[in-house]
């Protein structure tokens, strides 16, 4: 299973399973991937994105192999739950090993944090203007944690509150990914 590579054909079949309309399927896939990432995050997984992709890979392969799947979303959820369970077992083994063999790589909090702050600011300013404005407004002191304020903001953008939440979280994911990659580049220097 692990050697199987996701092909464009197989992925197309997966998308078709989500929606007959290609554009709609693409949007559904975006939301589904965010759901999977958040699901694994909420299970405490440090590799939520990898597990989300592995879930999609496994389900896509089943589809590609012609296995009948009656309810695709439920099947994806079941696969994700199975992977989360497997991953938890793996983490327990890793923790035990870590206790016996601690990591000796020297680490300086100050250096890493300064890099992170710099990377974050760079990534934030690198966002498309509309996304940057949205995320800044969403988290502005007068709006954050206030559902009514968020609803007003969504009205202003002519989208539903939940669509706005999904959009904000996708922007946040991109921001986090960009920041992590930037940090990793600095760490290699």
């Amino acid at each position: 299973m692990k050697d199987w590579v996701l092909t464009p054909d197989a992925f197309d079949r997966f998308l078709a399973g989500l929606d007959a309309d290609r554009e709609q399927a693409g949007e559904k896939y975006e939301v589904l991937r965010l759901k999977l990432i958040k699901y694994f995050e909420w299970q405490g997984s440090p590799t939520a994105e990898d597990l989300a992709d592995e879930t999609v890979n496994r389900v896509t392969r089943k589809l590609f192999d012609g296995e009948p799947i009656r309810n695709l979303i439920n099947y994806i959820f079941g696969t994700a739950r199975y992977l989360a369970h497997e991953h938890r077992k793996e983490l327990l083994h890793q923790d035990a090993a870590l206790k016996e063999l601690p990591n000796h790589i020297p680490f300086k909090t100050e250096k890493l944090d300064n890099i992170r702050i710099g990377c974050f600011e760079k990534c934030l300013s690198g966002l498309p203007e509309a996304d940057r404005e949205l995320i800044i407004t969403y988290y502005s002191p007068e709006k954050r944690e206030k559902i009514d304020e968020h609803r007003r903001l969504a009205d202003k953008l002519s989208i539903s509150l939940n669509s706005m939440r999904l959009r904000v979280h996708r922007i946040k994911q991109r921001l986090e990914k960009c920041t992590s990659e930037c940090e990793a580049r600095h760490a290699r220097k």
Partner: protein
Amino acid sequence: MNATFNEEKEKLMKSYLLGELTEQDKARLEEQFFVDDDQFAELLGAEDRLIGGYLSGALSPAEQDSFEKYFLASPRLRRAVQTESLLRDAIGARITEPDHLVAVQTAGRTKRVGIFSGMFARPVVRWTMVMAAVVIVIGASWLVWRTALDADRLRSERSESQEKPEQSNLNSNMELAQPSSTEMAVSNGQAQNENRQNPQKPPNNRQTTESRPAIVTLLLTPHLTRGGGETPVLRISRSTRTVILRVPLASDDYKTYQASLQTPEGKGINQQAGLVARRSSSGEYVAVAIPARNFSRGDYILTLFGKTPSGSVEKVGEYAFTALVE
């Protein structure tokens, strides 16, 4: 009706995010958000409010505790909180120095520590720190009073009967003291929580103080590892209930510390996580509180690990000592 329903829903989502739901309820909620995009978006909103509540100090002490123990235990979720903290900074939220690091930072050191910069501006934490400072001052005064009292008693006992010298001759590295709520709090997550919810009052009644368990503190020094220098001796009497192993730090490079106490043969005695650095007049240190009953006569090795913000664990040092149990 609708308000109650929404409150219940919010409570359910919060419980899910804090890992407090039963497996059955958890699976039900997960299935709902996988099938229904709106449910998922609402959960995202609940997560936003939870993180925001934590950063602004609006969570109850119990929620705050669960958040730190469960939500922040995940490296990815810690990063999410960090991102939100940075976002708040970026949009002009007030930036304050993290309180828990202020307690151990040297003067003039003004580093920002990402996730920990915004979240420690919480009033709850500030209030707790003020209360802790009051407890420390009262506790220190009481210790001075108690030590003087013990010395007086010792002197009068000596004059009345000829005691064996070793009974009053404590190791120079050790000090006999009554429990200090702040020492206990820093050494144990559970104690920290209890301390937050039930701030201990300093003893004001002699009967009470005498019935309280004694604490023995052993100072460990970095060079006193196996094979190097004189091994410190921990003397545990019958009245000793708690041992505090105090490990000085050259610098505080980690968010939290973990400690593992073992025998030289590798038998695990005690493990603790979530320890934080403290500052005393002699410098920064980590205190590890261990029940005296865990010890028997013999050699021990305390290994201290530092936990980085990315979640990896690094060894800080090993400290050997010998326990003598009366």
